[in-house]
């Protein structure tokens, strides 16, 4: 007998739960309207939600557009602002002028020619970022990545969002329940009932009785109620690679209501970790991510307050433990974990929400038609996720290994014993050839493409040897892209509005759908 998969039960009402519900419900809207498919989200009325990070990836634009969410409403209801990438200050030497951008735009002509060796051959005192994309200059000027006449979700310069995660989950919830037909059940899960084959048969809840389903999605956060606790899937820590285990966060008011608002995340290195600084329209979200083995909480708070300055007066930081790592398996039997339930890494590259989106999309697109083929889908899902978590860990570590900072935290980070083998090999290889398409970062849904590695490597002073004569074949193509970048940078700097001004206008007039 074939067991069709028709009823999806998601547990957990945070960002992961509602985004997953929305992505699945939007993809299977036809069947939901025909009454042959259902998405139910069970949310405890008693568990507080952890707002995961406030930085996102440009993928969120596509995800929300596919769900039918209005971008104007996102800005109005989630305290959203534009994010064009991140600036890493003080990561290489800690000197005053030490900093580089990891922008969201690809280098000019990225699919046609690798500009790295051409830039290396003739740097002319320009940073790699400024030579190949206008976006660093746009961030320097505090400009928005589009204009009020640019339609919703379309970009002049590629962008993501900074947003208030505490407002984002309820916003998506409303869309899911009002527009996409997601059932919302407020209840506490008391027990997980298993079938003979080990599958989850149903959940017994305190307020809503027994809830059965064909596929269960664990979005219960760090607790991992279904996959971790009920299914017994272990946790693979990676604190041997990434040392930060604590975050101390503050919500800092602006000096005035119309103070400049950065359109990028500012990540600043400190003695035993780094601070994020995210500009929302109403406040700045600032937090120190550090290694408790290298600094005391008191000393960390002192460094955080020194970074913020007088605006920190009277504010109390919130301390959040970070457990870096992920589940050993992500999909077991008929249970799959998304979001914090599947794992967490320090928010250095805002990987939390993008991983939720990618997992939700994979589940929605690969939704097994019946229980009999589910294990095949699960095995593929696990392969992809192991790959993704591995690559993200590598990429985060890359930010640390090239440092020349003298503090113990930073020096410990450069210890080869703490660097994953794959990254070690690539760093060796990249001394003689720059990253591009042939570095395996060419999966369709790669979280960080080769361009991201280029920005970090050359931003941190890494240099690849250029073989004499090797550039001859592509020199004229490269020159035209480099010139195009100069022209585009000049044009966009005069055309684009200030970040805060555009957000204000979106609140007032809205963006047009086309």
């Amino acid at each position, binding site marked *: 007998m074939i067991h069709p998969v028709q009823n999806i039960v998601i547990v957990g009402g945070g960002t992961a739960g509602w985004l997953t519900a929305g992505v699945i419900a939007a993809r299977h809207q036809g069947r939901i309207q025909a009454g042959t498919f259902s998405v139910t989200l069970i949310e405890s009325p008693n568990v507080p939600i952890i707002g995961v990070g406030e930085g996102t990836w440009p993928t969120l634009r596509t995800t929300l557009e596919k769900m039918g969410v209005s971008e104007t409403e996102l800005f109005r209801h989630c305290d959203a602002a534009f994010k064009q990438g991140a600036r890493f200050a003080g990561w290489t030497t800690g000197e005053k002028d030490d900093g580089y951008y990891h922008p969201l735009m690809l280098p000019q002509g990225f699919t046609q020619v690798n500009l790295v060796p051409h830039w290396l051959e003739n740097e002319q005192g320009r940073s790699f970022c400024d030579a190949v994309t206008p976006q660093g200059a746009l961030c320097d000027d505090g400009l928005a990545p589009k204009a*009020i*006449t*640019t339609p919703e979700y379309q970009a002049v310069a590629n962008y993501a969002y900074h947003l208030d995660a505490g407002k984002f989950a309820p916003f998506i919830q409303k869309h899911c329940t009002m527009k996409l037909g997601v059932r919302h059940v407020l209840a506490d899960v008391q027990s997980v009932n298993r079938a003979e084959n080990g599958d989850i048969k149903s959940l017994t809840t305190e307020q809503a009785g027994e809830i059965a389903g064909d596929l269960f999605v664990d979005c219960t956060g760090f607790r991992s109620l279904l996959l971790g606790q009920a299914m017994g899937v272990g946790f693979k820590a990676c604190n041997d690679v990434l040392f930060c285990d604590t975050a101390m966060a503050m919500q800092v008011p602006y000096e005035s209501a119309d103070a400049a608002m950065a359109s990028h995340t500012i990540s600043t290195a400190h003695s035993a970790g780094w601070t994020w600084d995210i500009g929302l329209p109403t406040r700045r979200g600032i937090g120190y991510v550090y290694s408790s083995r290298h600094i005391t909480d008191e000393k960390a708070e002192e460094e955080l307050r020194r970074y913020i300055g007088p605006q920190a007066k009277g504010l109390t930081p919130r301390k959040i433990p970070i457990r870096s790592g992920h589940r050993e398996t992500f999909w077991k039997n008929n249970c799959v974990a998304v979001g914090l339930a599947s794992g967490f890494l320090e928010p250095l590259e805002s990987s939390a929400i993008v991983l939720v989106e990618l997992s939700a999309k994979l589940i929605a697109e690969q939704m097994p038609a019946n229980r009999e083929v589910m294990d095949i889908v699960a095995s593929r899902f696990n392969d992809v996720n192991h790959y993704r978590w591995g690559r993200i860990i590598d990429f985060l570590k890359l930010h640390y290994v090239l440092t020349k900072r003298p503090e113990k935290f930073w020096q410990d980070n450069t210890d080869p014993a703490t660097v994953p083998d794959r990254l070690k090999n690539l760093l060796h290889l990249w001394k003689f050839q720059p990253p591009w398409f042939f570095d395996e970062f060419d999966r369709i849904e790669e979280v960080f493409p080769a361009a991201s590695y280029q920005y970090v490597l050359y931003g941190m002073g890494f240099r690849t040897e250029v073989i004499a004569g090797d550039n001859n074949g592509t020199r004229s193509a490269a020159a035209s892209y480099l010139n195009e970048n100069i022209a585009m940078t000049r044009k966009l700097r005069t055309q684009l509005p200030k970040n805060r001004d555009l957000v204000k*206008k979106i609140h*007032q007039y809205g963006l*047009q*759908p*086309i």
Partner: protein
Amino acid sequence: MAKVELLNNHTHRAVKVQPGAAARYGDNQRFVAVIAGEFPHLAAHYPILLTKDQDTGAFFIGAMLGFDENENLFLDESGMQTYRPLNLQRGAFFTAGNEVAIDLDNPRIDDGGKPLFTDEGEPTQYLQSIMALFRDLKPGLEMTRVFVETLVRSKLIEPIDIDLAFDDGTKRQLTGLYTINQDVLRALPDANVVDLFRRGYLQLIYLMIASLKQVPALARRKNDALLKATSLLNT
């Protein structure tokens, strides 16, 4: 700088205004905002298209009179021989609430122009025609705004790219213009079609579609002007 004052027959008794169309009076506009009531007049001469307000991003409808900045291809030494949109006709005048206001810095304010008031302080026929114009224009703007909102909400708008190559070798690429999406229009459910018809919108939509035929006509006008300019240079 504009110096706008509410019009009254004391302060402005002696003010005279040039009513005619000329480039020096500001009729040299390539795109003029229009109201729905004008569509039948406009469609006979000009493309009726949508564009976005640069300041708010909001769509508005206008008549396209030229391709280049400050170019009205229908303007010659004796004025405009074709229908002159209300927004050009109103010239130096504005409305403020229910009253008429005037911009005293407008170049149309000229002693050689037409008087606004008689010696007895009564509005002249010219001023009466301006007041009548605003009786059409003011409610028309609101009605047109609602029409545009309906188009946007019904996804009936799509971008139109106009790429032209002229005989003098120059090219024009116009962006930021929108027209009716005819695929969406054809696929509208019956109930929506009836609703558009009852509100008088269906006719407006078809006038906008028909006016697209004016794009090549306007291009020919531009081509003639360019060739004339080139031959003048050569002689």
